[in-house]
């Protein structure tokens, strides 16, 4: 079913009209309520009254992640008193990013998440096992709100405790599973070890996201778990999960452009990318209240398709993430972000060591990923066994996150190349 048919299947003309009205109102709203945006708009020479059509979006300045960090915690908020929920993301470099929701923002989130779940094929009355983490991470609660909105029975298992997840699956027979794609494969493995045939699980639909994943991984998941594996896209700055979602045709992710207006730009020049070309996804939140963002640069590289989908939806479709404007690399079909390695290292003893990814490809062999980690005093031990255990732990956790085998090497401090004081995160030795 289509949750919000009037907008998801709207004809382009009336959609544009709606977007135009909303953009004009948005610019007026942030100009009146957020000092940071007022300054940015003034500096760009834009007066709220100038914005009459969605095409005028190009006149507006970009918002970058640094704007959020620099105005920590709530400088970019346009409303403070009506905020009913706050989420804080882990800050891997500098301040964390903070997002807030008013009651209407939560309604919006519930609505777009309900659209996502319906896109994936959920029907009211189905049971959802929600294995995204609940808490400051937006994944868990986002799915939860959407499930409640569309009338699913939601089991908030959150992430981890795999044996328990599988027991709950056996006892309550949820039709839908939501989690990160790598965790779904991890559960398939655990199921095998527990003597459960992963292909016989009750899950028929997977809503997988929160990390980049490839078509190859989709095939693996669908094969291992006998499910329809759909991709969900979102980022906490925009709303959390619920920005875009694949329908059952799995031919691009429907982006809900009536509320999250997408543009694809050349990340170098900031100019509009040619139709169909891969560029950086930029999103304007047309109706958010607590922290609306104008032309937010997601750093995700995608292409966009405005053709009507076979499912009947007219909402444009973005491709799976093709890359990042930052340091991302692709190893054996898997997208690897240095930040993923950083998170793993941070989760182990809370250390934040220097690291470097080295990718190499020997003749007629698979790509090899080596993670060099600088040993610091916090993780150093006089016992070789402990160092080896640590190396093994890092290796296993990185593998669980990336779903590819890696080699971990402990190196001495200051051996990883720095450029301008910042570690060089990636060295790609593969022959192009």
């Amino acid at each position, binding site marked *: 079913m289509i949750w919000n048919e009037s907008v998801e299947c709207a004809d382009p003309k009336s959609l544009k009209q709606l977007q135009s009205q909303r953009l004009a109102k948005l610019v007026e709203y942030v100009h009146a309520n957020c000092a940071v945006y007022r300054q940015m708009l003034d500096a760009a020479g834009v007066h709220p009254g100038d914005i009459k059509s969605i095409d005028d979006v190009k006149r507006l300045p970009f918002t970058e992640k640094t704007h959020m960090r620099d105005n920590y915690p709530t400088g970019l908020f346009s409303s403070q008193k009506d905020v009913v929920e706050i989420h804080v993301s882990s800050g891997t470099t500098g301040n964390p990013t903070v997002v807030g929701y008013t009651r209407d923002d939560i309604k919006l989130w519930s609505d777009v998440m309900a659209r996502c779940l319906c896109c994936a094929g959920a029907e009211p009355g189905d049971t959802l096992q929600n294995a995204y983490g609940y808490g400051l991470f937006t994944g868990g609660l986002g799915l939860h709100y959407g499930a409640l909105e569309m009338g699913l029975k939601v089991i908030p298992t959150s992430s981890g405790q795999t044996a328990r997840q599988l027991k709950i699956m056996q006892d309550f027979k949820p039709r839908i599973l939501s989690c990160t794609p790598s965790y779904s494969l991890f559960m398939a493995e655990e199921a095998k070890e527990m003597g459960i045939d992963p292909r016989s699980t009750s899950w028929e639909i997977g809503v997988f996201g929160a990390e980049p994943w490839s078509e190859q991984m989709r095939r693996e998941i669908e094969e291992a778990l006998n499910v329809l594996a759909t991709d969900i896209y979102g980022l906490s700055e925009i709303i959390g999960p619920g920005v875009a979602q694949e329908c059952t045709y799995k031919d691009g992710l429907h982006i809900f452009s009536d509320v999250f207006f997408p543009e694809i730009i050349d990340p170098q020049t900031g100019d509009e990318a040619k139709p169909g070309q891969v560029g950086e996804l930029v999103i304007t939140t047309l109706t958010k209240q607590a922290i609306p963002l104008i032309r937010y640069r997601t750093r995700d590289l995608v292409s966009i398709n405005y053709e009507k989908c076979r499912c009947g939806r007219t909402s444009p479709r973005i491709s799976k993430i093709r890359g990042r404007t930052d340091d991302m690399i692709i190893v054996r079909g898997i997208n690897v972000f240095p930040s993923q390695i950083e998170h793993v290292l941070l989760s182990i003893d809370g250390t934040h060591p220097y690291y470097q990814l080295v990718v190499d490809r020997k003749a007629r062999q698979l790509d090899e990923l080596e993670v060099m980690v600088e*040993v*610091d*005093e916090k993780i*150093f*031990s*006089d*016992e*070789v066994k402990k*160092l*080896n255990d640590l190396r093994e732990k890092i290796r296993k956790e990185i593998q669980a996150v990336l779903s590819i085998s890696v080699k971990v*090497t*402990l*190196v*001495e*401090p*200051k*051996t990883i190349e720095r450029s301008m004081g910042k570690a060089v995160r990636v060295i790609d030795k593969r022959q192009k």
Partner: protein
Amino acid sequence: MKITQISIFLENRKGRLYEVCSLLGKGGINIRALTIAETESFGVLRIVVDKPDEAVKLLKANSFVANITDVVAVEVSDKPGGLANVLKVLSENDVNVEYMYGFLEKAGDNAILVFRFEDTAHAQKILAANKINVVTSQNIKGL
């Protein structure tokens, strides 16, 4: 009586051991005992020196990862079965040895062995109760 051991992380690279020893030598620090535990890609150098505080300061100032561990230097009679006698006492009293190595110097007629115990306090009690001599840090400076 505990003594201080310094452990240093070393990659298996040519000249790294030399660099540590040369640094300590220039700093006027004398190595009294030494061992290396190695793996395929890295090693841990463990040393006992006459001036441990200065040594650690010097190493850290030169970007080595170094930490200190309490170890016990035990006097062992330098004759057949000498070490076995000590180990027998330890084993009978459930004292676990993580690793051990020899000192360069002797204390009179006795050899000195450095022990890293799982539970140093417990090990010290057992050694004292069985009248096995241990070397103090003051003694090490004099060796």
